[in-house]
């Protein structure tokens, strides 16, 4: 019997290729999209889970004025003594960029870790060479990842080779496999921590000497409660670092698996993402699969009319209802299986493309993981049941007498359902369109609007030696392609220096936190910062030891002052030194728009000018950059010339949102395409069902547009109904999403107008071919065929 079901299923499929194509292609796209989303979500939610002790690993962090992922280098050595029960503990010093030299070759690399052998006990590195217990024991030892080892020593064994780090030469003592991309602690190479023992020891002596890049990790024993440790932390802080420190700070123990999702922290290596983002993606996957299932149900129930006779005959010949349900389920199963296989194939093929679009790293092999395979099996069964059960029950319920006589009884109920399902598909499409448009507007707002400074055509170059800045600046300004140049600790959107500030005289004796920027006299004009009161930062002599600062609006508001003039010449305490406020500047965006803007202090401190911001002429930028590079090599022959456009840096703050945006665009497109396939199929059936009606209308003199209107009017109404559901739903969901950001766009009516207009246009294009075909058909033919 089962053989018979499959035989008939295959014949039906091959005889109705158009119908099969619409169904299979739609579901194939749906499965491919869902599988891609599943892999992305699995990858993102699985951050750091590949480490076998991940559940017991915690990052020791600092909560004082802020949540800071960086802690003093003294934390781990003291914790090891204070908490002997810890299974492992290690200090990591992370450096994002590093310049190295091997022989005569220079390389600019990323992700240098400095740590000890304990690191390997926390993170399950796979050793290809070297002893994991001793590789990082001696000073001047370096462990490379496999890809770097191959890059540096393609023909030789990397072990024992020397790598120059500027002031030190380190010997390669180990090679590890590349670390999975979904780690919160990316690794390029690991240098033994004791290579810089003296410096680190000095830094470790103070609690508040918190170096950017210093992270502490611990592993608690199995069956040991983290709460026990958390309760002991205040005592540890007081006893080790003093009562004063103990009164001001808390040291949260952050689970390693939460690091990628906890957005409260500053100084993360990888920008954390809210888990909601991934739940939203799962929601999109669900909507896509629902859309594909709706196609199945719609097309199958529409086609049921054509198959009513067959059902009648089978029933007359003795088929029972369960037998007919099995037969229809068999057909659906075959189609779903074909779709799933094709979908998995398409997903595997396009995964590399998706990786590039979304800056992720997922290999097609991951499809073969047991959990992915079981997910594929589950989705197959769910789709078979969702898409198959209803049509199977409807079709098997036909009474032979009705099905032989006419089909009217068969269609009416199904038609209402089909309309309902089409409304659901359009609701989904329009919600996704609204979502995509809102994410697009927010992305534009992030990067281009309300920044408070002019970012256009500016590159940022970090200098190794601030003392050469004047020469460098002179050389740069003499280049014809350079418009202007300013020296500072960083352009407005760069920030890595934070200090306490207070103003006892103004009634604020308690410390608050402020960003500090060291800027030259050209900075304010070059970036177009707006002064609200007082003067700009000006050049001053090295001998002038008076601190004169410009503060931003937020700092002014922190001091409960509304009129900027009132802050001029007031004295505030910044980093322990008294300074006079000489000006107030309008807020500019120095961090991402996820968080509220914070206080900022600007001061002229030439020893802090490690950065050159260079505005280029619009013409021939590559040539200008090459010329700047040439100047650089003359001044800093030992350093690699690296630059970054400020807009790139700003965009990098929103990489996670960019991923969401790309995902929305891609998957909304797929959902709409699947919906269109279904709509096309439905219109085709509607047209074939109404051939006689169209024929009669034409004989009676109906013009072309009235026939076209006959079909389009109905679908336009469905789109409008769908819009009435989609608009408030989309508004509600996206309004909630926007609350993730301190600064966001407001959702205007134009977005909804675009959504409904584009739905109407898409539907019109989808249905145009079939409606025109029906309207242009020769009525004589259509009436004869009836």
């Amino acid at each position, binding site marked *: *019997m089962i053989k*018979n079901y499959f035989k*008939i299923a295959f*014949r*039906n499929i091959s*005889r109705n290729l158009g119908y099969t194509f619409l169904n299979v292609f739609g579901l194939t796209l749906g499965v491919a999209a869902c599988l891609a989303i599943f892999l992305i979500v699995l990858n993102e939610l699985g951050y750091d889970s590949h480490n076998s002790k991940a559940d017991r690993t915690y990052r020791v962090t600092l909560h004082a004025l802020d949540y800071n992922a960086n802690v003093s280098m003294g934390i781990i050595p003291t914790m090891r003594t204070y908490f002997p029960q810890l299974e492992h503990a290690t200090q990591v010093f992370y450096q994002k960029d590093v310049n190295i030299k091997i022989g005569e070759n220079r390389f600019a690399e990323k992700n240098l870790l400095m740590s000890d052998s304990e690191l390997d006990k926390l993170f399950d590195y796979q050793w290809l060479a070297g002893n994991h217990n001793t590789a990082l024991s001696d000073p001047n030892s370096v462990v490379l990842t496999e890809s770097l080892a191959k890059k540096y020593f393609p023909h030789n064994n990397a072990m024992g080779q020397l790598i120059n780090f500027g002031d030190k030469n380190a010997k390669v003592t180990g090679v590890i496999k590349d670390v999975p991309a979904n780690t919160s602690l990316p690794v390029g190479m690991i240098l033994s921590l004791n290579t810089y023992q003296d410096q680190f020891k000095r830094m470790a002596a103070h609690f508040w000497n918190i170096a950017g890049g210093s992270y502490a990790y611990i592993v608690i024993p199995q069956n040991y409660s983290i709460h026990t440790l958390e309760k002991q932390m205040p005592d540890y802080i007081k006893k080790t670092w003093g009562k004063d420190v103990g009164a001001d700070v808390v040291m949260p123990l952050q689970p390693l698996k939460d690091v990628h999702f906890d957005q409260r922290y500053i100084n993360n290596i990888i920008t954390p993402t809210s888990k909601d983002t991934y739940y939203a993606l799962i929601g999109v996957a669900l909507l896509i699969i629902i859309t594909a299932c709706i196609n199945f149900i719609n097309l199958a129930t529409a086609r049921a009319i054509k198959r009513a*006779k*067959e059902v*009648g*005959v*089978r*029933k*007359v*010949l*003795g*088929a*029972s*209802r369960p*037998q007919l349900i099995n037969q229809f389920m068999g057909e659906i199963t075959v189609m779903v299986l074909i779709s799933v296989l094709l979908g998995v194939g398409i997903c595997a093929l396009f995964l590399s493309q998706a990786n590039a679009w979304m800056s992720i790293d997922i290999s097609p092999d991951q499809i073969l993981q047991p959990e992915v395979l079981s997910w594929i099996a589950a989705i197959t069964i769910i789709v078979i049941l969702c898409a198959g059960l209803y049509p199977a029950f409807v079709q098997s319920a036909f*009474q*032979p*007498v009705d099905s*032989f006589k006419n089909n009217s009884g068969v269609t009416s109920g199904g038609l209402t359902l089909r309309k309902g399902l089409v409304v659901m598909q359009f609701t989904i499409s329009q919600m996704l369109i609204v979502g995509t448009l809102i994410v697009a507007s927010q992305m534009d707002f992030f990067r281009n609007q309300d920044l408070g400074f002019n970012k256009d055509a500016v590159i940022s170059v970090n200098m190794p030696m601030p003392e050469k800045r004047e020469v460098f600046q002179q050389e740069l300004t003499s280049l014809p392609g350079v418009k202007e140049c300013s020296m500072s600790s960083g352009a407005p959107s760069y920030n890595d220096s934070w200090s306490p500030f207070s103003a006892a005289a103004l009634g604020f004796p308690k410390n608050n936190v402020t960003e500090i920027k060291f800027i030259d006299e050209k900075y304010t004009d070059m970036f177009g910062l707006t002064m609200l009161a007082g003067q700009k930062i000006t050049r001053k002599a090295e001998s002038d030891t008076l601190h004169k600062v410009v503060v931003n609006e937020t700092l002014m508001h922190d001091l409960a002052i509304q009129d900027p003039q009132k802050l001029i010449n007031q004295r505030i305490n910044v980093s322990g030194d008294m300074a006079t406020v000489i000006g107030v500047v309008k807020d500019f965006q120095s961090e991402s728009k996820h968080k509220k803007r914070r206080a900022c202090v600007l001061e002229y401190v030439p020893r802090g000018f490690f950065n050159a911001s260079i505005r280029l002429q619009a013409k021939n930028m590559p040539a200008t950059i090459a010329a700047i590079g040439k100047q650089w090599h003359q001044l800093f022959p030992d350093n690699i010339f690296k630059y970054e456009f400020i807009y790139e840096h700003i965009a990098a703050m929103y990489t996670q949102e960019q991923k969401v945006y790309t995902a929305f665009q891609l998957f909304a497109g797929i959902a709409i395409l699947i919906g269109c396939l279904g709509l096309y199929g439905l219109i085709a059936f509607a047209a074939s069902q109404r051939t006689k009606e169209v024929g009669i209308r034409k004989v009676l003199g109906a013009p072309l547009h009235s026939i076209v209107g006959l079909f389009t009017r109905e679908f336009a109404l469905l789109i409008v109904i769908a819009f009435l559901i989609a608009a408030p739903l989309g508004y509600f969901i996206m309004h909630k999403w926007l609350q993730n950001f301190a600064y966001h766009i407001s959702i205007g009516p134009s977005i909804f107008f675009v959504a409904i207009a584009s739905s109407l246009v898409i539907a019109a294009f989808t249905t145009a071919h079939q409606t025109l075909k029906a309207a242009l058909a020769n009525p004589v033919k259509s009436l004869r065929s009836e």
Partner: protein
Amino acid sequence: MIKITELQKYYRTEEVETIALNKLSIEVKEGEFVAIMGPSGCGKSTLLNILGLLDDPDGGSYLFNNIEVADFNERKRADLRKHNIGFVFQSFNLIDELTVFENVELPLIYTGVPSSERVGRVEKVLDKMQIMHRRNHYPQQLSGGQQQRVAVARAVVNNPKLILADEPTGNLDSSNGNEVMELLTDLNEQGTTIIMVTHSEHDARYSHRIIRLLDGQTVMENIMI
């Protein structure tokens, strides 16, 4: 074999109620060949559908082999139908997706005949209907006469006691029509009871008895000699 008493059937729409069978009483004995005639809308097809357990009566009694079947549920009706009744339709009602062999095999599948036995039985009946050479063709590759022979083969493959034929020659030319009538006569001579709805006086002459209906009631019965 069949005894219907005061059988009633109404068709209702929202506003109109049409009486299709009006307290109709008929008896058909085993081995009879009965033709039912009458103008369009007289209730012929309704009667055939009820006799074939494809439709419910709204009143009256229907005894099939002395068992009251008027109140059978769908499952019971399907069970009785597949073991006892074969159908031949005017428009053949073959399944386009199945070959001649598979169409004829279908009733055997639904009655649970093992596959090894099915092949022999289908071949035997195809042979008898002289359509064996077309066993692997699809319905649309056959002439009307051939299609109706396949339909008859399908109706008899389960050795039903009763064959219900609804205008079996209505879509055929006279020579093919005669062939089909000969086939039905042969089956009747071998013991199968046949009830046939027809408009054709010519075809009706093949039967033993003609029942003439008008407005859902018997108006005349002719015994053929």
